[in-house]
């Protein structure tokens, strides 16, 4: 059993990991950059170590400083959260070389899965279905020929990729060469690795992923699937568990494929195997994420488990906490990612101060937040400031609760996507489960800011006016004869 942990992250995930670690009685250490000194994760840990860097994000990427912080505070283990160093094999190795426990997979497994080309080859060996694809193994011309042989449309991806960078869809054979070259130069620029590959592009695909947990000795259980089909520019915005609609037999095959892959890698700790599900029911390996995912709470809520607790127990040397037979799904859960961005201006990241922050409560409602009221939201970090997760007895109830909870979630002072999220999950097509990764583009017309009628507009203006002192004085304070004088100020 671990007795202490350093959480090498910030924001909501740092808070979430720290809470479970505290509940388990571990001594906790937070790290932070000066820009985050007022952030809630700093106060949630028994001690906190400041990391120094000119650029705030660089602090959370500084392997040497983080390991020094663990050493200085006597933390016996390191949890990387997600993002930052979570999928950096060198970081995991450095943690282990320092004699600390890394709460995550073996460094070589992180490296294997981080290279999309190697991961695909590994998945193929494990018998996991792959979309027909072409790798750049010989000449560029040979790659183009092989790619053209797959048939259109095609998706070109970076071998070292992620986040949509270096990704391009080819609908026309004449575009293939130019798109491939663009993808290679983008891949070179973002990942310092110009290798790309092409695979069949599935039209109207769904994103289905399977949560797995391994003991590092070949024993793996799955915690069923999540659906993350609602995305914007390859970024998930709404996730749910179980999938909106999925025949039991297909679900079993997808979960089995994930377990086979993880078992073959002797996977240790929590991981996620992502698949593309085609409208015809075929599914293809996408990638394996070797960390806790942003959307892990939906699995926790339908399985009734704490994934971070499982991670910490596994890292502490205990075996798998459950047998596969002991795991089941009850109800349905939906997660909405709350981001500071302006839906009216193409989701431009927004900055400001969270002057008012009221989080919702109620049966089945969970808010994993990473900022506190009064805190500044800056451009230094990711725009996601929290996740609203709601569970219901069925999908309809989960949606109803999430819509209501989004309505109760109040964040004033910085633009956000809360109202947009409510429109997404309350959309008839979302309620019908008609999901695919182009959902928000397909329904863009009906997901925009609704046009208010005159009375609704007036209500907003009146509500605002009552926040103006000059207006209040005239409306309430001044005896009638003087009210006519006007709003004198000097």
């Amino acid at each position: 059993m671990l007795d202490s942990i350093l959480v090498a992250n910030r924001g909501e995930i740092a808070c979430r990991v720290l809470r479970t670690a505290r509940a388990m009685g571990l001594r906790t250490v937070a790290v932070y950059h000066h820009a985050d000194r007022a952030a809630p994760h700093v106060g949630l840990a028994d001690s906190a170590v400041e990391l120094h860097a000119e650029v705030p994000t660089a602090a959370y990427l500084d392997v040497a400083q983080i390991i020094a912080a663990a050493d200085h505070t006597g933390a016996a283990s390191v949890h990387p959260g997600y993002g930052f160093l979570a999928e950096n094999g060198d970081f995991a190795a450095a943690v282990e070389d320092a004699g600390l426990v890394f709460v995550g997979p073996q460094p070589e497994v992180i490296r294997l899965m981080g290279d999309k080309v190697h991961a695909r080859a590994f998945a193929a060996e494990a018998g996991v279905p792959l979309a027909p694809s072409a790798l750049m193994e010989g000449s560029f011309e040979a790659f183009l020929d092989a790619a053209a042989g797959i048939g259109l449309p095609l998706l070109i991806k970076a071998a070292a990729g992620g986040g949509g960078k270096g990704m391009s869809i080819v609908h026309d054979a004449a575009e293939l060469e130019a798109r491939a070259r663009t993808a290679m130069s983008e891949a070179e620029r973002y990942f310092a690795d110009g290798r790309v590959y092409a695979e069949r592009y599935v039209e109207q695909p769904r994103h289905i992923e399977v949560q797995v947990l391994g003991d590092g000795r070949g024993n793996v259980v799955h915690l069923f699937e999540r659906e993350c089909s609602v995305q914007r520019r390859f970024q998930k915005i709404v996730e749910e568990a179980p999938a909106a609609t999925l025949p039991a037999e297909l679900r079993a095959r997808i979960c089995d494929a994930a377990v086979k892959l993880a078992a073959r890698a002797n996977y240790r700790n929590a991981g996620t195997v992502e698949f593309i599900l085609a409208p015809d029911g075929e599914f293809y390996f996408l990638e394996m994420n070797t960390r806790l995912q942003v959307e892990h709470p939906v699995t926790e809520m339908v399985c009734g488990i704490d994934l971070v607790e499982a991670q910490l127990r596994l890292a502490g040397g205990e075996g798998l906490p459950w047998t596969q037979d002991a795991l089941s799904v009850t109800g349905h859960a939906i997660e909405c990612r709350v981001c500071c961005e302006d839906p009216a201006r193409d989701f431009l990241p927004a900055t400001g101060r969270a002057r008012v922050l009221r989080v919702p409560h109620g049966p089945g409602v969970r808010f994993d937040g990473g900022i506190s009221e009064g805190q500044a939201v800056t451009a230094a970090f990711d725009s996601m400031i929290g996740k609203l997760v709601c569970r219901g007895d069925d999908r309809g109830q989960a949606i109803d609760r999430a819509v209501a909870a989004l309505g109760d979630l109040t964040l004033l002072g910085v633009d956000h996507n809360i109202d947009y999220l409510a429109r997404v999950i309350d959309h008839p097509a979302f309620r019908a489960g008609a999901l695919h990764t182009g959902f928000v583009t397909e329904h863009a017309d009906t997901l925009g800011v609704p046009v208010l009628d005159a009375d609704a507009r007036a209500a907003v203006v009146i509500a605002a006016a009552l926040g103006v002192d000059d207006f209040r004085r005239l409306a309430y304070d001044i005896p009638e004869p003087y009210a006519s004088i006007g709003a004198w100020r000097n």
Partner: protein
Amino acid sequence: MGATTPARFTDPAMSTSFPFTLGGQTHTLTIRARRPALVVEVDGRCYTVREHPSAAPGESTLRIDDRLHEVTRTRESDRIHVKLDRTTWSVGYEDPVTAAQHDAGGDDVLRADMPGVVVSLNATPGATVASGDVLLVIESMKMQINVVAHRDGTVENVHVEVNQSFDKGTELVSLHPNT
């Protein structure tokens, strides 16, 4: 700071108008009655407004005509962030004094932030002024507003005359910094 004696306006309704912007459009809110209940006019329609503060700061319930709304709001300089029932809005409001002086920050030219009329001129070209001196008095939204120098300097040019009406954005006075 220059002092201005308030003048009485004959049209009480017009003296209690407030401009707000919502979604790029301006909406003028005018107080039409204060007793027995507050009545405001927005875009030509009148609404009876009753406000009941809630226990939490910044929160209240608002009855507009027969409809009850839950409101949370916070003001941040020229924006009022409002949560009305289940949706969030950002409403623009610039009080007239701020509006008149808005462009003064860092600019040598003072511009009008809203249409109005020049009531009186204190500034004359070549005059030395100190920060806070009243350069001219304008009337806008039926309110008289002192336009003050935003820093020390010399009046370079006065672009308007007494009783001249001007549009939003009109140059009023140019200052030249003292060297």
